[in-house]
């Protein structure tokens, strides 16, 4: 592939690795240093990402409601979220008197850790991921199922009926929508014949799965977007933290930085869900390729892979934010009906069709 950009993320990583290799001779120490660097970089970039997503959410909400949104602090209101974070930093971290203090303080960490673990196999650019584990899809879905434990823990230990109700709703919701998410992911796993995220991206060299897999892939994509919006507790599925009914749900009793950590986890989850949708259905960092149109594909290759990845991810994030201001909130029975009576049967039939397509080789 022709390179017009001198610096790609892969080369940058290699350069830093070489630099460290010369400086530190002990291999164990070298590995620990590199792990620390990756961790710190990840933390900083995730915080910046969450600042951006918080700003984007408010601006998108304002755009949908024909108003301006935050526009005073900093250029276009970009520093508003920094100001909010500083405010949260100075707030007192209250712990309710009768709560289970250990679990109350542990819960935000579990939620954040679960969402950060799921970042590992995502490829942000060509050959640039933290750890391309050979069971990527399964790993992400298994690790992200941990966050429900943190939510249940938060709801229980707050000693507040609203928190407990919110946690129960959230648990029921996440556990049931996990099935649809898993089944729609399996559709792509069947088509590409692989569970590693890197291999799935490579299999989209001659076109993204959403185009190659015909209508079943599109159905799987739509189900994935709906079910994962429910899984990350975002509107119209935000029963677990419905402000108007439950005064905030499972995070009612939290304040200060502990509350901010729930917010952080929510935005990281939003990013992960969108990145997974972009990776599996829209090719991840893979540029827009059409079959064997050599010259067209060459032109597309000139756009760097990281821009492709981020562009796709942010389009999906925008769509999920759009949902929030378009659909009214579902009742709990409607929510469970939607999953068990519509999405789950549809995705089961869809899996059979996808398997048929994969066996007969009808996909491109």
């Amino acid at each position: 592939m022709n390179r017009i950009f001198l610096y790609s993320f892969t080369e940058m990583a290699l350069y830093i690795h070489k630099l460290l290799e010369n400086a530190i001779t002990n291999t164990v120490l070298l590995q620990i240093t590199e792990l620390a660097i990756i961790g710190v970089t990840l933390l900083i970039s995730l915080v910046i990402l969450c600042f951006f997503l918080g700003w984007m959410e408010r601006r998108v909400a304002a755009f949908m409601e024909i108003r301006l949104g935050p526009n005073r602090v900093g250029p276009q209101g970009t520093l508003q979220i920094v100001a909010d974070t500083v405010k949260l930093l100075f707030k007192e971290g209250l712990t309710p008197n009768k709560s289970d203090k250990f679990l109350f303080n542990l819960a935000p960490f579990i939620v954040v850790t679960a969402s950060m673990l799921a970042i590992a196999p995502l490829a942000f650019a060509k050959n640039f991921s933290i750890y391309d584990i050979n069971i990527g899809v399964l790993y992400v879905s298994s690790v992200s199922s941990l966050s429900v434990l943190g939510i249940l823990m938060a709801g229980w230990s707050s000693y507040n009926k609203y928190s407990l109700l919110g946690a129960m709703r959230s648990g029921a919701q996440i556990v049931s929508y996990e099935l649809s998410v898993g089944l729609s992911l399996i559709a792509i796993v069947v088509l590409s014949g692989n569970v590693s995220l890197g291999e799935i991206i490579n299999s989209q060299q001659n076109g993204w799965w959403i185009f190659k897999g015909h209508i079943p892939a599109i159905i799987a994509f739509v189900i994935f977007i709906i079910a994962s919006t429910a899984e990350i507790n975002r509107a119209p599925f935000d029963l677990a933290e419905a402000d108007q009914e439950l005064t905030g749900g499972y995070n009612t009793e939290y304040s200060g930085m502990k509350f901010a950590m729930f917010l952080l986890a929510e935005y990281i989850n939003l990013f992960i869900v969108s990145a997974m949708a972009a990776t599996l259905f829209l090719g991840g960092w893979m540029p827009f390729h059409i079959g064997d149109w050599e010259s067209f594909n060459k032109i597309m290759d000139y756009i760097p892979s990281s821009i492709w990845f981020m562009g796709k991810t942010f389009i999906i994030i925008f769509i999920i934010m759009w949902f929030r201001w378009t659909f009214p909130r579902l009742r709990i029975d409607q929510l469970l009906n939607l999953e068990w009576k519509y999405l789950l049967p549809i995705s089961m039939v869809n899996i059979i069709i996808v398997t048929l397509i994969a066996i007969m080789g009808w996909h491109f």
Partner: protein
Amino acid sequence: MDISVIIFYIISVVITGGALLAVTSKQIFRAAVYLIFSLLGVASMYFYLENNFIAAVQIVVYVGGIVVLIIFSIFLTQNSGHRLKKPDGKRVFFSALSVLSALLLTLNVIGNYNFKSNSNNTIEPEIKNIGMQMLSTTQYGYLLPFEVVSFLLLAAMIGCIVIALKRN
């Protein structure tokens, strides 16, 4: 000491410590939380042994599934927020006896089983090989146990639906 040995011991401490706390905790919800740590420790042990598939399945099935169900049933039980009473002496005695005999039995089996490595017959723990092995009817295939387990799960599911459907 090698770094992998240190990691092994850290994981072992988490597994056994979590398990011990789970059975000695006075609050039932806390016991469930400690159980999570123990099960996650087992999952990380699988990761440590480079058997990623089993590790992910361990997290999905045990931590994401079974423990969540346990927590749900705790939420639905009355008085689950209260501290548990101290068990009486007779119960402690008999449970200790059964645990001790189970421990002796396990130690005996492990002691007599000389772990030989059968290097000529190993299969890479890749997802594809596991799937093929599950559905193979040859000598080391698992088709029959797989089908038996599926039947058991099917029966359990039908039982659940029947119980849930029962009105009045």
